[in-house]
């Protein structure tokens, strides 16, 4: 591949980063540049998404085998563009509502997206590391974005401290793998995998990488930062962090563990399975007792990390496809659910309690229906995307002779029915609070946010009914 083809291959990343730089300049030049920045970010993300589709058939690696282009990378680049686009659409009116309407929000989302794209296409551990850091550092700032709100500051600090702590482990893992394989290139490692079977340093490195990645996807026992961070961060940013960045981490997880380490070995897969079961159990059970809806969604996102880990534990074709499909479905449902939360939320962290949703389905019929769709899909009811995704993941566990893992997944799903449906019941069957009925103008719905939420709901519906629309792109990934 020549240089220009390489550039074309990573064009989605280039477009997003360039747009980020331009927005930096715009923010510096204009005092009130938010609107321009907003539209520029949207245009650049659409453009990057189109280029991701355009480069889909390249199936290669660029820059001396450092990044994958086409196929797998294109799929992930595309879904990150979708996730970032929805986040940006949701955030404009939310930021105005919270009085933090600075264009820097868009810069950070764009840079984080660029980092995610690198993360999910890095065929070299150096790129994986750089991608994860570009993503994480942008997200730390996003979490602390409401800088006068102590809760947001606190979320940023906790995310940063634990994220940087996890980076240490990840990096030490990379160092050991480099030490034992003399390379950081996943293709080379995969080709010579037989030679490392009995290399202690190598497996130590794999273990440390597992710890690092588990932190990034917020899987038990490395989950403790997630609820605090998702609760304190500005709501659209919480959706972005909990869904899109998690998918990115899973993209890299699959790339490193399944393609790089050939699905690793029995012990590591069992370790992943145990992490998965713990995440599903703990996430779902603690979510039952939450009263704050952001915190509830945060704990449920830990459980969803557990579901996706099933695909990695089974490490077969179906599992791989399950991770990919679920990543897209999860981005749509989680960003959508957080989107509804951001619409309902009022200034100064109000209306975040699940009780505040009482009667919402009658006051705002459209928002009520959309929220119900997200809740049903997150639970895994057919015909929504969450069901198909879970089906793939559980089926992969059965195929890999880990039926107990699939059973655990189904049981965990049953538990989750309670708290997801609790929101729906609140919206439709509970009395409306009198104070809200008396001042209806308190709950204004912004059009762009509603539009974003509507798109996610339609997306969930379409890929839920016609999963082949997405899955046919999984047949050839490299």
């Amino acid at each position, binding site marked *: 591949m020549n240089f220009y083809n390489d550039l074309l291959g990573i064009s989605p990343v280039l477009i997003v980063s360039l747009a980020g730089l331009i927005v930096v300049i715009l923010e510096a030049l204009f005092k009130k540049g938010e609107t321009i920045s907003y539209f520029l970010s949207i245009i650049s993300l659409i453009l990057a998404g189109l280029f991701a589709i355009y480069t889909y058939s390249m199936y290669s690696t660029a820059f001396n085998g450092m990044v994958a282009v086409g196929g797998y990378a294109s799929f992930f680049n595309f879904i990150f563009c979708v996730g970032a686009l929805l986040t940006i659409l949701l955030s404009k009116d939310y930021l105005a509502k919270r009085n933090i309407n600075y264009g820097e929000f868009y810069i950070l989302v764009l840079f984080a997206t660029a980092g995610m794209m690198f993360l999910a296409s890095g065929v070299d551990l150096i790129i994986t590391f750089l991608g994860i850091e570009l993503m994480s550092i942008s997200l730390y700032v996003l979490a602390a974005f409401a800088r006068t709100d102590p809760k947001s*500051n606190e979320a940023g600090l906790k995310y940063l401290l634990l994220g940087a702590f996890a980076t240490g482990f990840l990096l*030490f893992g990379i160092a050991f793998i480099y030490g034992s394989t003399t390379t950081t290139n996943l293709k080379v490692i995969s080709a010579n995998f037989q030679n490392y079977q009995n290399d202690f340093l190598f497996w130590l490195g794999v273990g440390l990488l597992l710890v690092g990645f588990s932190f990034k996807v917020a899987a038990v026992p490395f989950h403790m930062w997630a609820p605090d961070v998702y609760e304190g961060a500005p709501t659209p940013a919480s959706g972005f962090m909990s869904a899109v960045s998690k998918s990115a981490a899973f993209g890299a997880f699959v790339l490193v563990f399944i393609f790089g380490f050939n699905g690793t070995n029995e012990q590591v897969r069992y370790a992943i399975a145990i992490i998965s079961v713990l995440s599903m159990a703990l996430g779902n059970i603690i979510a039952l007792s939450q009263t704050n809806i952001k915190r509830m969604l945060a704990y449920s996102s830990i459980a969803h990390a557990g579901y996706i880990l099933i695909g990695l534990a089974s490490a077969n074709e179906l599992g791989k496809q399950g991770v990919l499909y679920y990543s897209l479905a999860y981005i749509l449902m989680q960003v959508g659910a957080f989107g509804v939360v951001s619409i309902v939320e009022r200034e100064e962290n109000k209306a975040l309690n699940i009780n505040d949703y009482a009667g919402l389905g009658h006051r705002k019929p459209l928002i009520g229906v959309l929220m119900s769709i997200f809740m049903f899909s997150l639970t895994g009811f057919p015909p929504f995307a969450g069901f198909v995704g879970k089906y793939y993941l559980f089926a992969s566990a059965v195929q890999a002779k880990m039926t107990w893992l699939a059973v655990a997944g189904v049981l965990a799903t049953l538990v989750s029915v309670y708290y997801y449906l609790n929101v729906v019941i609140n919206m439709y069957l509970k009395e409306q609070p009198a104070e809200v009925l008396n001042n209806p103008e308190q709950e204004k719905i912004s059009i762009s946010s509603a539009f974003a939420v509507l798109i996610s709901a339609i997306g969930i519906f379409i890929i839920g009914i016609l999963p082949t629309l997405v899955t046919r792109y999984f047949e050839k990934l490299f």
Partner: protein
Amino acid sequence: MIPLSWYLFLSLILFTIGVLGVLIRRNAIVIFMCIELMLNSVNLALVGFSSYIGNEIGQMLVFFVLVVAAAEVSVGLAIIIAIFRNRLTVNIDEINLLKW
């Protein structure tokens, strides 16, 4: 020639000190310093491996780690300043609005 294992043991010791520091210390700035210690112990391991193996990938990675660590520290300091302006403390036991 100093054997590779010495570098690795030193690196592991430093890394462990860093991890313990993060877990035990309560001042956000000190926790940061411990995280830096962890990252730098990795750098030591990388350089050790690099000279032992005889290729330069490890040394290259060290540059990236340095820069990333600097960026992380900058962002960290910025967040700590924001917290200090709002709360007048950097003790993470007092930063507990959200259930830790």
